[in-house]
């Protein structure tokens, strides 16, 4: 195995593209090192991207924020601007692992790990965030929603790395929230999760809603129908119940050591309902 | 003679009794007499037994004296955590 700390995104992409064996990109390392320890992968090449200039920065851009791929989630949580604009994205990112893991793990890493249970991903998808990708052929932008391709898989091509994630601007009276279910209060992988991003009209009714569920299908699931049910309402109980059922309808989870199909499905609806109420209150909605 | 209380699963080895009488002044004598009188008890006694004497549990202690009026209970040898 070789370890290389790349100096530019181009260098990183070139190294990765040139290596015929298994490669891993190292940002926070909180997934990669676990894979190494378990013997799950034995990469020929590890490319550390943290030394790439600017990759550890959070920068304001067009009313939104560009989050470098090596920004540890702890730093994200310390950034007042991002927290104010996308509180649901930040709370998802900040739920990953322990304080120790927070000091290292990144949203881009969580995305590229390809787990349907990644806590940062539903919030990013609900936010319509966009990943900037550098590759041997140059740079491209891609909606975060289109990056995961199934457990452990992404749509990234050989040699491509995510260099930043862009969180767009949002209008007034808009906010988001993320909830996950875990058996303990900390340290677990989500058994089911839900991110809800809402935009309210002046009268306090929901103008637009985007609901994204995690850990209930091979990738995160955008619950479009459930989102539409919220539009024009102030989240009355009957609407929320319908919305929860609509969420359950799009779940296609698995039975495993962490939860059953029935439990995951039911809990995804419950979490979406609870997260919607939090997002609604954050957006200034009053019932 | 001392009365010895056996636990339930030893009954089959002791003519169906859960209380037997043997002549013994010490724990060791008691075990020897039990094996002589009820050979079916030997495998368990070889594996290990504890002895409760008036409510105090002894795990080994051959020479523990047993008064004739003492309460004597045989128990499996215990290991712990």
């Amino acid at each position, binding site marked *: 195995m070789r370890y290389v700390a790349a100096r530019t995104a181009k260098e990183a992409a070139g190294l990765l593209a040139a290596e015929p064996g298994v490669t891993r990109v190292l940002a926070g390392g909180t997934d990669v090192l676990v894979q190494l320890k378990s013997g799950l992968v034995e990469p020929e090449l590890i490319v550390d991207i943290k030394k790439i200039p600017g990759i550890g920065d959070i920068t304001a851009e067009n009313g939104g924020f560009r989050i470098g791929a090596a920004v540890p989630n702890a730093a994200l949580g310390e950034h007042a601007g991002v927290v104010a604009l996308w509180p649901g994205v930040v709370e998802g990112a900040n739920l990953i692992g322990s304080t120790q893991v927070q000091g290292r793990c990144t949203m881009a890493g969580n995305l590229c790990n390809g787990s349907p249970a990644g806590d940062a991903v539903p919030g990013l998808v609900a936010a319509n965030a966009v990943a900037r990708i550098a590759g041997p052929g140059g740079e491209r932008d891609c909606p975060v929603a289109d990056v995961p391709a199934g457990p452990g898989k992404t749509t990234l091509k050989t040699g491509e790395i995510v260099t930043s994630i862009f969180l767009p601007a949002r209008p007034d009276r808009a906010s988001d929230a993320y909830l996950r279910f875990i058996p*303990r209060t900390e340290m677990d992988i989500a058994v089911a999760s839900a991110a809800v991003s809402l935009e309210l009209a002046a009268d306090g009714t929901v103008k637009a809603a985007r609901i994204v569920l995690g850990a209930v299908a091979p990738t995160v699931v955008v619950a479009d129908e459930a989102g539409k049910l919220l539009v024009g309402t102030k989240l009355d109980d009957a609407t929320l119940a319908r919305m929860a059922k609509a969420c359950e309808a799009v779940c296609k989870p698995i039975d495993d050591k962490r939860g059953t199909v029935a439990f995951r499905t039911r809990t995804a609806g419950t979490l979406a309902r609870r997260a919607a109420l939090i997002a609604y209150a954050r957006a200034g909605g009053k019932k | 003679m001392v009365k010895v209380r056996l636990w339930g699963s030893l009954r089959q080895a002791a003519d169906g009794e859960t209380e037997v009488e043997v002549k013994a002044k010490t724990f060791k004598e008691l075990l020897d007499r039990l094996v002589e009188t009820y050979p079916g008890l030997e495998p368990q006694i070889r594996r290990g037994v504890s002895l409760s004497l008036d*409510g105090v549990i002894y795990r080994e*202690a051959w020479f523990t004296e047993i008064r004739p009026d003492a309460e004597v209970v045989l128990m*499996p040898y215990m290991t*712990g955590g």
Partner: protein
Amino acid sequence: MSLDEYQKREFKQVGTRVRRPDGVDKVTGRAMYGADATAPGMLTGRILRSPHAHARIRSIDTKAAEALPGVKAVLTGADLPAQEDDFIRDVQDNCMARGKALYDGHAVAAVAAVDAATAKAALKLIKVDYEILPHVTEVDVAIKPGAPVVLAGRSLENVPAGMSENVTSHCEFGHGDPAKGFAKADRIVERSFRTAATHQGYIEPHACLASVSSDGKADLWCCTQGQYFVRTLCAAIMGMEASQLRVTASEIGGGFGGKTTVFIEPVALALSRKAGRPVKIVMTRDEVFRATGPTVHTSMDIKIGMAKDGRITGAEAHLRYSGGAFPCGTVDMGAQAAFAAYDLDNVRTYGWNVLTNRPKEAAYRAPGAPQAIYAVESVIDELCQDLGLDPIDVRLKNAAKKGTKSSYGPTFPDIGLVATLEAAKKHPHYSAPLAEGQGRGISCGFWFNFGGNSCVSLNINTDGTVGVTEGNPDIGGSRASISLMAAEELGIDYDRVRTIVADTSSLGYNDVTDGSRVTFAVGLATIKAARAAVRVMCERAAKIWGIDADAVEWKDGAAVPAGPNAGKFPPMSLAEIAAVSFETGGPIAGHHEVNVDGAGVSFGVHIVDVEVDKETGATKVLRYTVFQDAGKAVHPSYVEGQMQGGAVQGIGWALNEEYIYGADGRLQNPTFLDYRVPVASDLPMIDTVILEIPNPGHPYGVRGVGETGIVPPLAALSNAVSRSAGIRLSELPMSPPRVLKALGGS
């Protein structure tokens, strides 16, 4: 020992909260644990483990591994001798499979190499030809005739005919006639329960460093609860003489019963003998979960009859325990403990041990008791609810006390259950109001406590300080409590005593640190060793004063004439006598070697408040109080620590911890990520109330405190969750999917 050991006294040192002697080393990172030892020329040992739950090993080809540069030794089961003794053979075969791999993770080969990378590469070169056999991992399946047989020919003579060969032993305890008792009951509840296997979850993986010389002398450093037992097992497996094998216990990073046997130590010794160099083996966490000694998993049926006034009229339990692929006697202890808290006329427990394709069980804090008592205490709580009775009142009405014929046979001497229940009843926690949707559960718990073989040597240094040498690894602060007892007996300050844990060559045999025995049994030996030293010091003073030794007594840390007739001499302190010891006959010491009996049983009562989220099945623990009879609390902080730690392990067991096996018989969750021990944010403070009902079998009245605390949480939580959720739960852990399912929510 006898019940007249205890003498009431005013304590000066015992009962104070002194600083532990290992404290500074442990907070600065200097303390040496199992994995911290090194030796010149040390090799790294690694173990190859079976990926199959049950498989015949047709052959193992180690040639390629042996040929790999840097590999210095390769070991398989064929390298270890045949053993006559069942017990030793089981331990050895568990350390290194022979003929069959009996569970996922069972060791099948090992290597020693110059570094970890080479050792890892060598393991990949070992080719094992497996014939996969049908497996069985669940006790209820394994007990049925026709189930795959894990080990043939291991059923004891007490197993009824017609059962599966997996049933290795049967036991029955009790008195009276339960059927008659049930006939008198106003209400009978009969329920079946299941508990998952759990792991002790010590944070320090097993680690050892073995060095065997060509002249047959060997040294072994390891983290263990009992270096002497390690020596016994390893000497038998290696065919060595005990005197040639010195075992030194490192600081131990948690054990809870799980480090009372060997897993890697004989392997390291055998590799070292083959390689002619020291070999260190450190387990990974994955190995710890798959291949050390979790507790039994169980299936139980409980039937209890109760009269309207709360009196239990009859009680019966059928317990089916599985301790994995080798026979074990844990169900015997469960069957004895099940109804120990109650004064019953008609009680019977039946137990069966059943083999399954799981790792060989090791002890875990009060082994066997938490499961059976969980089931019993759950049924009692249900009866209380059905009959509209207060759960503490019902337990008081039936509580065992002095003179009660216990459900396991002996008549109880002085015990503390009634006092413990009364303390719980009058505690503010019990009467605190509960909010809507919250539930309160209580449970009693019981453990026997052990004594056992204990050797202590106590040296009076010429500067007036004292060194105590004992042979039990300090797992919960015992060096502090032993120093306290030595200081108390000698009448000197705690700070003038230093207690160390000896290697196997320095003292006679000591039983393992188990059964909550150390403060009780080693404490007793320490007190007697101190008394022996006091006798010598009194003799020296007598010589100096020119009077009879009988005319000198020890008071407040000094020799004094015993009464006016003995003569008028100023007191001679320990330091003064020690200072002239060379001139008065030589160094002064006291020692005591004994197999201690007279352990006092201990009872606990726990109260817990919870709130169940009925939409997710998640349980939040809101408030927790532990009441336990410790006998004399030598170091109250460490007694509290045992009570709190036991309670939290029990909370984990009740709510989330479990061994999960897949259909392929492989362990699904061998990580701390998915084997979910409680984290700090899961818990409230754990309040403690220590009761000090003296144990008549100890000079200071000490009972054991280490184990009882893990017994009550299982039922206390289950009863609280059941009351909060409005349903009756009968399976552990009460993980959210299970609770939500019981609520009909999924």
